[in-house]
């Protein structure tokens, strides 16, 4: 078997380390903003850590908004027709 | 302008106008005398080939905007009969001749499937008479002569349509209905001629135009015009007078349908155009009013209603017949705009639709050779087993819809341009709507041809059958790319007519 970087992180401890590294990165980014004076197009952009906060909140809005959307508009796969593309399997593949 | 014939010279080229008409007329009785199936095919084929050759010479002769005239028997009009060829009728002579050649090639390999062998000689003879009539109507400049040739072509057409009885007895009643309608139309036409003669005392078109302009506002002439419009309306299948057409086209032998659909109605429309522009004055109030108040609405109705009806037809011949009605609507619309561009689009569409419809009917005929019936269901999966015929049908269909690169696009574009120029927005939108309907009914057939499973397997028809079909299909494409034959000639014709 060739080397597969993804399998390397299968181990829970390594994955946790990766996650930890990511958290540290986030923290660094958060702190760095304190030291940087940014050139801005708009007033709002100069708010402390505008991008971090905006990104975090907006992402959450997207997740909850889309769940609401599914609640309203979600339908079973064969809603339009019994043999619609939505519900059929891709024809003629080599592995079932 | 007019290159007058020099009396006493025997140069063949000066006699072209009469040769065009008389060639098939002389061959027709000969066939009956010889009474040999193969020979009569060969003779008629050679005759039509000669016609085609002559018509090409004539087109060359008038392509510089000149007018060729010929005095029958040397009698000078208005007493004698005059044949007068200009760009407008040269192009129609060409259309009729070439379609007759192609149809004859097709009939060689397919006629036996539709008409019993012992009748073939008579069939060809009738066919040539019909051809004579159509060519004569177009070539002559004498209005009574128009009537005579019209009757020649009509009478032979009734016989030709009735030949379908071999396969389907309903052809008889269709032909009978056509006969009644046609005869009424011809009667109206001759009544109209009578009125005109009464008022002007002349039968020559140019002469009448001159005399009528001196008469001024004349009720007799106006009534004559009314009768002629209705009479020709019948012949060209204007919408409420169209009832003979679908059945006649459906039950006639395919060869006949092919020929009629490509030529007969166009000739009638040509007569109407010729009368409006060369006999009457197109600037007169009553002409304009009639076209605006009646013919344009009728044309638009034909365009839409016939297309919608076509969508629901299962009998393919009937479907194409209704589509023909819609296409006649386009031509009539172009004419009724009473503008140079409109008339040009009408003339161009005559030619383009002639080729397109002939291609469609002929490939349909090829399908029928195998399937033996005309219902849409029987075409299932033929796209695979008869690829060449199907491809030709698709090309014809695309041209009928008006897809760019095909002949149909050119004429629709011209028509659209003409309607927009005149400011009829709504009509322009309706033209597009009607094209969309055409997409639907053509698609319906293509879907059956290519997207459904084949129930029986057929083999492709013989090469001899494919050749004429593909000539027509290639014409559909050729005329969509090279417009010098159609558009330029039509522009010249409109200039002459609108002089």
């Amino acid at each position, binding site marked *: 078997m060739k080397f597969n970087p993804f399998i390397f992180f299968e181990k829970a401890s390594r994955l946790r380390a990766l996650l930890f590294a990511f958290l540290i990165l986030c923290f660094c980014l958060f702190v760095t903003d304190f030291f940087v004076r940014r050139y801005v197009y708009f007033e709002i952009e100069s708010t402390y850590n505008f991008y971090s906060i905006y990104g975090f909140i907006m992402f959450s809005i*997207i997740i909850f908004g889309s769940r609401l959307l599914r609640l309203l508009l979600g339908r079973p*796969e064969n809603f339009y027709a019994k043999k619609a593309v939505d519900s059929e399997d891709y024809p003629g593949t080599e592995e079932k | 302008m007019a290159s007058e014939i020099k009396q006493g010279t025997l140069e063949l080229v000066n006699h072209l106008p009469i040769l065009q008409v008389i060639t098939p007329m002389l061959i027709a009785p000969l066939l009956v005398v010889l009474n040999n199936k193969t020979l009569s095919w060969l003779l008629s084929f050679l005759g039509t080939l000669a016609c085609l050759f002559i018509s090409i010479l004539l087109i060359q002769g008038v392509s510089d905007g000149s007018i060729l005239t010929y005095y029958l028997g040397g009698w000078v009009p208005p007493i004698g009969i005059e044949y007068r060829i200009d760009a407008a009728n040269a192009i129609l002579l060409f259309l009729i001749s070439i379609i007759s050649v192609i149809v004859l090639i097709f009939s060689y390999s397919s006629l036996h499937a539709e008409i019993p062998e012992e009748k073939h000689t008579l069939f060809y003879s009738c066919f040539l008479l019909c051809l004579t009539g159509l060519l004569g109507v177009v070539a002559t400049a004498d209005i009574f002569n128009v009537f005579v040739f019209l009757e020649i072509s009509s009478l032979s057409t009734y016989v030709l349509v009735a030949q379908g009885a071999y396969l389907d007895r309903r052809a008889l009643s269709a032909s009978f209905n056509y006969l009644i309608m046609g005869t009424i*139309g011809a009667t109206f036409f001759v009544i109209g001629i009578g009125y005109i003669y009464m008022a002007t005392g002349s039968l020559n078109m140019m002469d009448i135009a001159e005399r009528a302009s001196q008469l001024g506002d004349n009720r007799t002439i106006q009534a004559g015009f009314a009768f002629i419009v209705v009479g020709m309306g019948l012949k060209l299948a204007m919408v409420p007078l169209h009832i003979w057409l679908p059945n006649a086209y459906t039950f006639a032998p395919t060869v006949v349908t092919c020929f009629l659909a490509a030529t007969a109605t166009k000739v009638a429309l040509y007569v109407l155009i010729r009368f409006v522009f060369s006999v009457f004055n197109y600037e007169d109030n009553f002409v304009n009013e009639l076209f605006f108040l009646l013919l344009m609405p009728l044309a638009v109705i034909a365009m839409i209603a016939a297309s919608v009806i076509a969508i629901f037809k299962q009998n393919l011949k009937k479907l194409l017949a209704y589509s023909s009605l819609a296409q006649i609507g386009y031509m009539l619309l172009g004419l009724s705009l009473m503008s140079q561009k409109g008339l040009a689009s009408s003339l161009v569409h005559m030619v383009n639709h002639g080729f397109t419809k002939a291609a469609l009917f002929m490939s349909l005929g090829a399908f029928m050779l195998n399937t033996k019936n005309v219902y849409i269901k029987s075409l299932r999966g033929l796209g695979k087993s008869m690829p060449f015929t199907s491809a030709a049908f698709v090309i014809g269909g695309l041209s009928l819809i008006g*897809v760019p690169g095909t002949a149909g696009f050119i004429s629709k574009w011209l028509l659209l341009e003409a309607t927009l120029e005149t400011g009829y927005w709504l009509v322009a939108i309706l033209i597009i709507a009607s094209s969309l309907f055409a997409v639907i009914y053509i698609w319906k057939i293509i879907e059956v041809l290519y997207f459904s499973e084949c129930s029986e397997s057929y083999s492709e028809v013989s090469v001899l059958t494919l050749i004429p079909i593909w000539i027509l299909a290639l014409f559909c494409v050729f005329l969509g790319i090279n417009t010098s034959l159609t558009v330029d000639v039509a522009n010249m014709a409109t200039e002459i007519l609108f002089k």
Partner: protein
Amino acid sequence: MLATLPLPFYFLIGGLVSIFMPKGVFKSSFVCIVPVIALLVLLNGNWDEGFKVQFLDLELNFMRVDKLSTVFGIIFCIAAFLGNLFAFHLRESTQPFVALVYSGAAIGAVFAGDLITLFVYWELTAISSVFLIWARKTEGAYHSGMRYLIIQVLSGVVLLFGVALLYFETGSISFIKMELNSLATAFIFFAFGIKCAFPFLHNWLQDSYPSATVTGTVILSAFTTKLAVYALARGFPGTELLIYIGAAMTVFPIFFAEVENDLRKVLAYSLNNQLGFMVVGVGIGTELALNGTAAHAFSHILYKALLFMSVGAVLFRTGTSRASELGGLYRTMPLTATFCLIGAASISAFPLFSGFVSKSLIMSGAGKEHYQFIWLILVFASAGVLSHSGIKVPYFTFFHHDSGKRPNEAPIHMLLAMGLTAILCIYIGVFPNNLYAIMPFEVKYNPYTFEHILTQLQLLCFAILAFIILSKLRQLPSEIRSINLDFDWTYRMFLPFLIRKLLLFLEIVEQKGLKLFNKSFQLFLDKVYRVSGPEGVMTKILTSGTMVLFIAIVLLVVLGIILF
């Protein structure tokens, strides 16, 4: 000389030739080489003269080569090459042929110097591309393709109508900048809008792309919509309406993409969202923004193709592209997973990837022109892109919970196609100046400033953080086999329903009306029958007597009009 042929002709001729080639490696190679030749011809040819053709009384120009059209021409050639390479395994005649014709048509439309030529190629893209959907050969794909075809052809018809009107108004058919101030230009704008998947006109995209074949979707994703973007950039730059349309386009697909199960449909929604950025760029219309649109289209075609390829490879191996049935494929398809991640990073605009250097041009364009609200929406949309294309697609395909599937790694030619695309994505990201050099206007922009990298990383990392937290809290929308209603409900459900009702109603009216008609005319018709003999097989209305009646009426009307 061959070199003087208009570019699309290489594709059309190549396509025709390919039909007659025996199916095999040679044919597949040929199909790949055609776009390369075309690209070489484009770059080395001298096109100052254009390629003018007289048609009716109009002068057509098949090759209007300037900077804007060249950018799109180049990327279309590259996309055609990559798409055909990805489809190397195909041993059939339809798809390679259609792929060439389709890409050729799109390129032809890009170089069209007049609106008639544009229209012809516009329709050709529609008619050719639908076969990539039908090639799937299922009933569902057939219907989906049909809907696609109708909408696309409709767009062409609307375009033609607009062109005809414009020609009548101005007497010109040249394809130049237009003002959205007349019926004619409104029609043209609408036609572009259909192809560009404006809100409420967008459903053909999400309907058709997931319905095409594995390889067909890759080809489809590159051309049609970007052609529309090009047409807008050429015809309507600086039209303010486009800014708001574009902004709406960036927002609403995000939510649909987030809950959509079919990953190719997710990518189709994400495509819609990316188009929004380009449309905003066109709407702003400054040099900076138009550069941004061109650059973004360029890099977008590449990373979107890469994403469609990777999901396509998975579909090719497993037979499904549904998020609910995939997961854990990193074990056996690590290379595909890597390429997918590169595509995801590019589309999410991570620094050093292509999206970063192109999207920021548009964002700065919006910022410089002080569209604060639009700018906020674009930033929001950037987070949204990350959510569905950046995270959802790779995460649910290759990671997440194990689906138990252990497919083989993608075939070598697919890996090659993905690898090349991935290299291009990174190359553009690392050396943006090479991309900027071919932009329509001079670019004075450096994406790699410290603050730009910082803010972008803040945005993305904290969005990812939100994802991780919500994922731990089990708040993510679950993958279930379902679909979501979109605006296509109106024509897939509501309209047919309405038509059925209407037909039913008409039938009733018709029957009632016929009865009435029959009753009142019975006496009269009876008489006519006696005159006209046996009924035969003709239907009632069609007797000769009725016809004659019609003739009489028409004659009366005609006489009436003429004489009074």
